[in-house]
């Protein structure tokens, strides 16, 4: 049986030195990963084994998949390299007894994110956390995992479980699953709102105005994320955009097609965030190779 891959492309298969891929054309069967599910194609950081406060070196990816080397996202490349501050998104506190008290030592402007980063220390340990709106050096922030009968008076920068905070509190760095680190409300100026309690679940409104049902023990930090005016500052120039790591793009948009421009949609129903037990589905791939 004839091979569907033309002779020409087989002979011209070029191996790239840097990424180790093969040449791409219409004949090659390439499965690219999906974008928009939380994988970063801008930069790669080599994390050491142990947590450290030392700023880490960054390797720009230029929209490429770090594993295969193929270009996944267009429009990313170059830009000034900023050292990466390893932010600890887990605010775990003691479930009983006095809370963990940490002192804010410095507020650092991080080039890898819009939010500011706070260097905090307690005992021997130094770590970075996301700075909240009004945080300043010298502040003392508390972290507690205890859920009391009556709601705790919320103080900005403190972290408590969702059930411990009064309804209507503005929070950020909200966990999806207890103990796994904050997932919602991490960008500059964002915040979530605790709307109501529904049985043993807590309904939280995200910064995109979607509503989500979370477990009671999920930790959340009170207040808004720092650098609130971040989204109001225009980039300003093409050069500044390049400094941010954005390659030139075409501004082409067409009227009347219904594709471009702002969409006004109904809010989806409340999503109950639960770990689904996914069935393992086996897949077999059918090919024509005879070797």
């Amino acid at each position, binding site marked *: 049986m004839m091979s569907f891959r033309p002779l020409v492309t087989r002979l011209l298969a070029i191996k790239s030195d840097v990424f180790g891929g093969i040449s791409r054309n219409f004949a090659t069967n390439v499965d690219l990963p999906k974008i928009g599910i939380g994988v970063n194609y801008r930069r790669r950081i080599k994390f050491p084994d142990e947590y450290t406060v030392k700023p880490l070196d960054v390797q720009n990816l230029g929209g490429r998949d770090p594993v295969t080397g193929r270009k996944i996202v267009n429009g990313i490349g170059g830009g000034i390299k900023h050292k990466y501050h390893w932010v600890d998104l887990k605010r775990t506190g003691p479930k009983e007894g006095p809370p963990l008290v940490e002192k804010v030592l410095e507020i650092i402007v991080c080039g890898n994110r819009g939010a500011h980063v706070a260097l905090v*220390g307690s005992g021997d340990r130094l770590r970075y956390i996301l700075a909240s709106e009004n945080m300043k050096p010298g502040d003392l922030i508390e972290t507690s995992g205890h859920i009391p009968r009556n709601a705790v008076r919320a103080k900005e920068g403190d972290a408590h479980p969702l059930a411990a905070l009064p309804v209507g509190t503005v929070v950020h760095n909200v966990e999806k699953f207890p103990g796994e680190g904050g997932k919602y409300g991490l960008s500059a100026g964002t915040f979530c709102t605790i709307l109501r309690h529904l049985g043993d679940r807590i309904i939280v409104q995200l910064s995109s105005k979607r509503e989500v049902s979370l477990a009671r023990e999920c930790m959340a930090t009170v207040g808004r994320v720092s650098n609130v005016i971040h989204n109001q500052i225009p980039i300003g120039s093409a050069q500044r955009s390049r400094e941010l790591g954005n390659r030139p793009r075409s501004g082409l948009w067409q009227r009347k097609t219904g594709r471009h421009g702002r969409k006004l949609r109904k809010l989806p129903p409340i999503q109950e965030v639960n770990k689904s037990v996914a069935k393992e589905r086996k897949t077999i791939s*059918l090919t024509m190779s005879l070797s």
Partner: protein
Amino acid sequence: MRLTHSLWKQHLGRMAKKNWKAHGKKVIQESDELKNLEQLGLPVIDINEVVKDMKIVERVKEEEPKDLKHWVEPPPVMNNLHPLYKARQCYMHKNNTVLIGGLDQAKIIAKAVEVKDGLPKMLEEKIEQLNVADMHKLVKRSILASHVFDAQQVKLPKLHDPSRPAWQFPRVYGISDQRRNYLLCEKLVQLCNSWSQKSSALFAVNNGRCVVPIEKEGDLIQFDLTLNMALLSSVPHEKFSSQEEEENIYKIDLPDIYPLKHTVSCEKTHFYESKDIFPVNKFSKFSHLHTIIIHHNETQIKNLHETKVLEGQLVGRCLLHGFAAAVSQARQLFGEVEKELPFPVSIQCIQTDGRLFDFSIFQLNTLDLNGSEGMKNMFWVLPHLELFSLCAYDEGRPTLQGYNPEVLKNFMAFCTH
């Protein structure tokens, strides 16, 4: 009869390929067959269980012979079999460490208090009486020689303007900070020698290593410091404190850095050798540390989180160098001392970065560093003194502006005390 190839409107090859790509992946759907069979009572055996014991003999790959000519010894594995491994954790304080808690944290580690603003009274009187008017011209010449005229040309750190992050400055060449500090101190010490025969500056140790482990609140802290220049004398210092100051010690509290611990920002390690090293031979005639001069090299001394080193952190560094030198000296004089010393051991300490000078004195009264009650050690420090405001090539001309004569007076007083 058609002689030409018929042209299809659609490229069927591409269609076929897309077909294979789309339908080539089959997801095996679960069917109810297994359930039905189990209900009927028929045994269901997984084929993999049957095949498990059947082994596929794979051809053994021949191992390539090792290239012994280019063999490089692998780096030592840092585990508990390493020769330097100790079960007990040690907080290392190296020469370039600066504490995040600054002067307050240094005071807690050394259990030291500032009994008076500025230097001790007897030194202040001496500084006022000192007449070094004829030396200033020579000092200015020395400053220019160490900052501007020296022949060394190395790449200096890249200049960076935070407001213009993309701008690449032309690379600057000049004298490295280590050499500049060394030259300046060397010349100032030489001037002290020539001015006064009584100067202790006649006998000095360059880059002496001082290693001293201490116990505090159940923690093992080890200082591994380089005393860039240690001036020696044959007799120890007399105590700097007055009777009144000694009584005041008990009234002054140590600073509080809650919720931080005194060991925060110290490097933790399990791989160390706990030993005492004093920079001078015990049996030498000049075995007392009189003054230590330490350099603040901007390229080497950095915070762990790489933000700017603050003034308080530098003064704290000065304190700890004085403290470590004093402890090392005390151990050399008195052996393994636990608490009270027969007489207080004092060290004068000068820290410089080529322009800013910190003059301080550390008096070690006790080696009992636990708690905050009881006898404490004493520390005197002057605020930063600028030697000059500008010393560089300005429009092609070597310029020295803003010369401060106070620095020389203090320097002389320290060296000739």
